[in-house]
């Protein structure tokens, strides 16, 4: 059934992934690397969107969890001499376990307060990466042996690339199916009305924990791939900027949309490479882009996709709908500006 649902957007997705699939044949190493980054960020965005877009938990810890996945994978190889293939899953699970613990503060906090608590967690994680030198090698970072693809027809960069591609595809399919299942419905219910959700028998702790676990697992996998891709791990990769980028990806693509995550991630990675041309003014341009997206594409690109592309089948899970709903609910205040409407909403 979920595959049927996929049909509407299959054209777009298979186009994108088809392109990513044949990319290695045509692209030079630089574009191969960019493509690989895209795949890693697609995984990150998928996970983060499950948490923020579907379950409505405005958490800011994903970058840190991503880092934990990367460090876990890399350190197991360096300290324990494990192979990448053994270390990666363990690293991902480690990230998942730690990420799941964040569900407990999430029980009491919501909105901006959850954001701040998780932000603090992320900064504290950075501090640990800096100072737990005996294990993490501190801020200086460390090299990671390249994954060994001995028994496969691919080698080096190409190996990591196709591994990321496979992982991204599988995780995309999982994300799609999960969000369309009763679990996805429970997430959206929590987001749109915790009280009503409880009254329908949805246990907040269970499902918040599940949402955090899922997104952390995705982040963990992405981290593992990232360490394999770079062959070098250091704290900078997982700082606040990293978090901001990921957040921007899902908001630009569309909160509460699986395809939106894919669009947002691939688009932003591509844009950031294009922006290189602006050299030292790229900060300014990037900032302007973010603001413009928020003003002109507030509910994410998938909304326009749905509007303009025939047969684009987007489930109603977009957070945007809630906002739209809000404005209709306060529609009684004729001529009210958006600000006023939201104010009334809050009152």
């Amino acid at each position, binding site marked *: 059934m979920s595959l049927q649902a996929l049909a509407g957007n299959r054209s777009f997705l298979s186009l994108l992934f088809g392109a990513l699939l044949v990319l290695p044949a045509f692209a030079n190493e630089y574009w191969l690397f960019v493509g690989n980054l895209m795949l890693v960020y697609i995984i990150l965005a998928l996970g983060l969107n499950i948490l923020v877009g579907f379950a409505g938990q405005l958490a800011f810890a994903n970058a840190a969890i991503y880092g934990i996945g990367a460090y876990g994978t890399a350190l197991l190889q360096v300290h324990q001499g494990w192979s990448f293939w053994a270390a990666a899953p363990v690293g991902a699970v480690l990230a998942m376990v730690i990420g799941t613990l964040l569900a407990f503060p999430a029980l009491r906090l919501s909105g901006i307060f959850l954001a701040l608590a998780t932000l603090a967690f992320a900064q*504290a994680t950075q501090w640990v990466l800096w100072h737990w030198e005996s294990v993490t090698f501190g801020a200086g970072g460390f090299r990671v042996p390249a994954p060994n693809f001995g028994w496969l027809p691919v080698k080096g960069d190409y190996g990591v690339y196709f591994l990321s591609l496979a992982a991204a595809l599988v995780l995309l399919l999982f994300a799609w199916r999960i969000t369309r299942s009763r679990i996805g419905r429970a997430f959206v219910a929590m987001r749109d009305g915790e009280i009503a959700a409880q009254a329908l028998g949805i246990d907040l702790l269970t499902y918040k924990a599940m949402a955090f676990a899922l997104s952390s697992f995705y982040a963990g996998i992405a981290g593992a791939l990232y360490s394999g891709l770079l062959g070098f791990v250091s704290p900078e990769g997982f700082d606040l900027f990293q978090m901001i980028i990921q957040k921007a990806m899902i908001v630009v693509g569309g909160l509460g949309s699986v395809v939106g995550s894919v669009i947002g991630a691939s688009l932003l990675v591509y844009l950031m490479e294009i922006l290189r041309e602006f050299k030292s003014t790229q900060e300014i341009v*990037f900032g302007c882009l973010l*603001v413009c997206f928020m003003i002109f594409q507030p509910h994410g690109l998938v909304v326009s996709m749905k509007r303009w592309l025939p047969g684009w089948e987007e489930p109603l899970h977009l957070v945007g709908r809630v906002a739209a709903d809000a404005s209709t609910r306060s529609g009684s205040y004729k001529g009210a500006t958006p600000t006023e409407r939201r104010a009334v909403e809050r009152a």
Partner: protein
Amino acid sequence: MLMLSYLMATGITTGAFYALVALGIVIVYKSTEVVNLAHGELFMVGGMLAYTCYVMAGIPYIPSLVLAVAGAFVVGILTERIAYRPVLQHGLASVLVATIGVSFILKGIGRHIWGGKGDYLAFPPIVSPEPIEFGNIMIMSQQLVVLLAAMSVMAGLALFFKCTRAGKWMQATASNPKAAMLCGLRIDRIYMYTFAVGAAAAGAAGVLMAPLTHLYPDVGFVLFIKGLAAAVLGGLTSIPGAVLGGLLLGVIEQLAAGYVHSSVQDVVPFLIIMLALSLLPTGLLGARGLRKV
């Protein structure tokens, strides 16, 4: 004993930094329920403008300060216009991303204009730079200036909210936007001025601290994070809370650095945020934040 008194004194003077930054954050959050993530950059803009007027153009200090604060005020209005008003009805996440966008823009502009003059721009102190005797310890007089400034800004804001009409409007809008609107207040405009006042506070902080923080495009970030910690500690909605939170944060930091080790100084604020939020979600003096049933 001497060590303790030094650490306490330092804690309070650095805490005043955080308090001053936290004030601006609280003003904005109080009425708009949004944290302006470009606050740190507004701080930087204020400082840089003052530097341009005072050091580069040679304008006297007070006019420079006024100009810088005015400049920050205007930037605040712009921020509200491009990153808050048009985005608001699309939810918190959008506003956060938009204000992040603004912070990138401001940082980039700062780097472009002032970034080529070396790594740190030294802002000449407005009072004697020599440390002065204070009881059995020495204190940098400039730090006392910041402390006094924090207190007076707090008092000024209190008066502003109590006595001026604009202030009362902001209060009303903050506590009940619907009622305020039905009373015919243009809350659009009020939010705009709220942002502007918050920005002006950030700018003032930037100018006052410049001799101690020195100026560089990224000066605002860490102060913003610490100020945020202070504000959360104070409950995000209470002006005295912000000051209290700031001072507390400063003192705890110093004690940790002095008696545990200097390396833990930087993680303390974040541990505090986590604890504060998970143990007392309303902060020390705040009222909001609990899940509304």
